[in-house]
């Protein structure tokens, strides 16, 4: 209702109480009609947003809001800030929270880091024409998971069917957890580097005590040791594209391909992003992601992948386990 109309019906012009009441009734009818239209429009907006087509278990309009928020965050913050650090005495024992991709115990001596997309890879002694032929070995049986947390698992997990090509080759299918296989994984015949632990630990050692934050709503101050991801990228730099630009993304997955995460290259170059080999002054345990995991204080824990088997420098936005289950790809803190 326009204020002009209201002025026209100004009580000063009414000569009896009955006229005042009549004017009020008219205003009331009109304003409640407008209110009903407004309420319907509001409800319509809500339906339009929340009941839009699904995109990775998130209505696509809410997914776009995640992406718009991420784009704004990249513009405004550009991953510049350093997370606060704490004295090591304040560090706690980090919760073990989710074993997707690492349910079996890996034999440490069978571990290699597959690196795809490095510049001049043929010049490295660690070059192999097909990184996927490397076989990871697991100890018989599985580590106990008693007392662990599987908070992310919804009440009815979807069981994915095995991949017949893998199974015919005598290999375990990849991507057997709820989100299924990754579309960013590398196919057979992909050349790259097969790095041993010594190739990583030769980089400058770093200690960091930061607050680890889980999207579930808990946080713990944690003492990490390892090497800077930035130093790793320096030592094994990504290949430039023909136009001279560097790939924008980094993709990582567990050796069995069940858990996988995508990152902005910018985040991997953040000085506090660590390739972690130790926690609380001790070597990393299997359930914390031994032999090598990621810590990034600019991200929630679900982006801090445990037991990295493969790193790919890529220009295609990589697939991401929790993004498929409704979470935000960016997850930037």
């Amino acid at each position: 209702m326009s204020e002009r109309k209201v002025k026209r019906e100004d009580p000063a012009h009414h000569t009896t109480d009955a006229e005042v009441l009549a004017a009020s009734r008219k205003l009331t009818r009109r304003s409640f009609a407008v209110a009903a239209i407004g309420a319907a429009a509001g409800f319509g907006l809500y339906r339009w947003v929340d009941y839009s087509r699904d995109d990775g278990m998130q209505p696509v309009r809410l997914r776009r809001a995640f992406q718009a928020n991420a784009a704004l965050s990249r513009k405004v913050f550009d991953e510049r800030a350093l997370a606060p650090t704490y004295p090591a005495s304040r560090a706690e024992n980090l919760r073990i929270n989710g074993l997707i991709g690492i349910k079996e115990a890996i034999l440490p001596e069978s571990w290699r880091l597959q690196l795809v997309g490095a510049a001049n890879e043929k010049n490295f002694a660690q070059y192999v024409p097909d990184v996927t032929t490397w076989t990871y070995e697991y100890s018989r049986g599985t580590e106990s998971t008693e007392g662990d947390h599987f908070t992310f698992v919804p009440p009815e997990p979807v069981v994915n069917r095995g991949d017949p090509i893998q199974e015919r080759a005598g290999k375990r299918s990849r991507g057997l957890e709820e989100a299924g296989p990754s579309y960013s994984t590398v196919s057979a015949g992909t050349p790259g580097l097969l790095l041993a632990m010594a190739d990583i630990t030769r980089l400058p050692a770093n200690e960091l005590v930061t607050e680890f934050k889980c999207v579930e709503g808990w946080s713990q101050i944690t003492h990490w040791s390892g090497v800077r991801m930035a130093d790793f990228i320096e030592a094994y730099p990504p290949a430039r594209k023909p136009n001279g630009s560097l790939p924008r993304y980094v993709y990582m997955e567990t050796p069995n391909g069940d858990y996988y995460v995508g990152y902005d290259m910018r985040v991997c170059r953040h000085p506090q992003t660590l390739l972690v080999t130790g926690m609380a002054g001790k070597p990393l345990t299997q359930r914390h992601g031994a032999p090598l995991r990621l810590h990034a204080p600019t991200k929630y824990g679900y982006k801090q992948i445990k037991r990295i088997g493969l790193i790919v420098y890529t220009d295609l936005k990589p697939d991401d386990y929790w993004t498929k289950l409704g979470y935000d790809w960016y997850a930037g803190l």
Partner: protein
Amino acid sequence: MDIGNREETPAAPPVTLRLERKHLLAIRWMHWINFPLLFIMILSGIRIYWNDSDNAHLHPHAVYRIGFGSFTLVRIFPESVWNALHIPWHVTQGMGDHFFFMWLFALNGIAYVVYSVISGEWRFLMPRRGNLREAFQVMLASLHLRGGQPLKKKYNGAQRIAYSAVIAMGAGSLITGLAIYKPTQLHYLTTMLGGYEWARWEHFWLTIGFCLFFLVHVAQVAFAGWNNFRSMVSGFEIKPTNEPSLERERRSWR
């Protein structure tokens, strides 16, 4: 418009009622837009909070509880409450809504504050000296421990305090929310609020504050009656001509 002059004229017919323009159009819109937005923010927030309560038995003394040190009187919320409200396993739904509607909630809140300042309506709302005492009298009167509400212009002391507080709480929710949303990039803000866990605690209890405000507000509106409620929709309240005019008050600011 000037009722006083009309009444001085002997020939004027006996008008005892007038329509008081109580709530301006923009304020009414912003109030009613805020209502579903706040509801969505609270519901989606609870859905996010739930995730911290999952497997609570493993971590009984986390942030959302009533207790001290390692003593927890009650977790917020007990299992039965979560289940009754159908909260469990809607975390991603909560995050999707929270990080979309937060923009509308923030914009509406900022627009309200800016409009209140520009229009001068803030003068009706800002608590003044003596309001606490008046609020106490209002409370006694509401509980029928004392007869007669104290005189007021637009709002009594209790209303001034409550409505101003709820605006400040809205600002607090935005600030603590930002500190939780970007605790690394905005770590100065997060640290100022006492750190990440404290910021979460503050955000949570502000939300509980909104819920309590809502209960009291709805009850008071119900007791105040239709004439008052309608004025939040139509803008006008029917008042006796001899009561002080809000329009005259508004004109006096210019």
